[in-house]
């Protein structure tokens, strides 16, 4: 692989690791928000009295935290898709040039 492509791959990989790291960190923070007492939500006992339970957390802070988490997820996906696109192009190029088959035919050195 060319050095320029290698360098670019490293930068993208580093960015992806940072993004995923912050994603995990933000996920832990959001989980802590969830763990806080939720006065606005009903308890199990209320449900037995014939009322519907809301599907997701109502307080604005929690909703925002979840939407931020979602934004991080999409950002990470976009970065990973970018990396995958480069890898696919590279793999297709290697295949179309027949390099993979050439590598198979190459004589193996000692120890292989």
């Amino acid at each position, binding site marked *: 692989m060319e050095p320029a492509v290698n360098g670019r791959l490293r930068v993208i990989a580093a960015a992806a690791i940072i993004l995923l790291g912050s994603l995990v960190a933000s996920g832990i923070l959001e989980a802590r928000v969830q763990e806080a007492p939720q006065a606005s*939500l009903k*308890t*199990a006992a209320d449900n037995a009295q014939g009322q519907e*339970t809301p599907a*997701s957390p109502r307080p604005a802070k929690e909703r925002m935290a*979840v939407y931020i988490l979602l934004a991080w997820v999409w950002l990470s*996906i976009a970065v990973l898709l970018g990396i995958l696109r480069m890898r696919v192009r590279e*793999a297709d190029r290697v295949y179309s040039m027949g390099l993979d088959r050439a590598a198979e035919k190459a004589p193996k050195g000692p120890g292989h």
Partner: protein
Amino acid sequence: MNVLRAWIEERLGLRAVTLFLEKKEVPRHKHTFLYYTGSSILLFLGIQIVTGVLLAFYYQPTLAEANASVVRIMTEMPLGWLVRSVHSWSATFMIALVFVHLLGIAFTKAYRKPREATWVTGVLLLGASLAFGFTGYLLPWDELSLAATKVGTNLPKALPVVGAWLTRVMRAGEDVTGDTVSRFFIFHVSVLPLAVMAFLGIHLFLVQRHGMSVPLEAERKGVKVPILPFWPNFAFREAGVWLVLLGLLMTIAVVAAPGIGPQADLMAPAPEGIKPEWYFLFMFQTLKLFPARVLGLNGELVAVLIMMAGMAALFLLPFIDNRPFARKGKVITVLAWAAFAYAVGMSIWSLL
């Protein structure tokens, strides 16, 4: 690292698998996108297993605790509502993809010789997926799930000889009670997963054994279809599809998380607007439209028998249409389109 690799290789002999994957080729043509549906089903099955295990830590399958434990998961457990939502939506995604996968194979006639057994195990997997949906629907134990399960488990009753027995087995008694919840839970987390693993193992083995089918036109004309190495060319593309599907799943799970109704009351009358999950809607609507008596016979019995005949035809399709692979099979294509249009039309009608 090399020492560890050698240690593992010496004991497990995984080199044969990696060699197989290195040599594996995927045909490249206008229907290649259908190959992604199979692997995406596996992705959603994996998500189902992970989220299902998380939910099972807190869920209690008893009359008194079933609904309350789901409410607790949603309100007290960290991100519990999201785990439940992802579980519910990934089931929807998985079943939708199973239908697309099945229809794609029906349209491309990929079920023909030598892939009959692959089709049969695929239909069994469809049945298991629907059974997962049916058993899972009751577990929150709210008014709607109780009423829908009563309707669903009442259906086999129309069958002569075995009908009443079948209903009793499903309900663990004469009526839907707390015992039914326990029974459905055991089926949902134990019996069905074992069945799926067995069918899936055979299905995947057969897919690898026979390879991926190519379009009929190419087969007929004897054209050599271009190929793509599975590793890494196809696997990376597949990973991209998985990522997009994961993003979509997360988004829908956050935006449209399912709620839970009031705890089911065994003595209360059925609530209005009972509806099963979307994949049973066409059957539900068909039953609703069937007259009480057809040619002097019980209408429900006739409807159940027609549905069973349809399922049997689907299961035995490779043996009904057992012509050489290169034959077009226009009748099957028309029938598949008609069945698809019927299911979609009836489902929409049911929602209106």
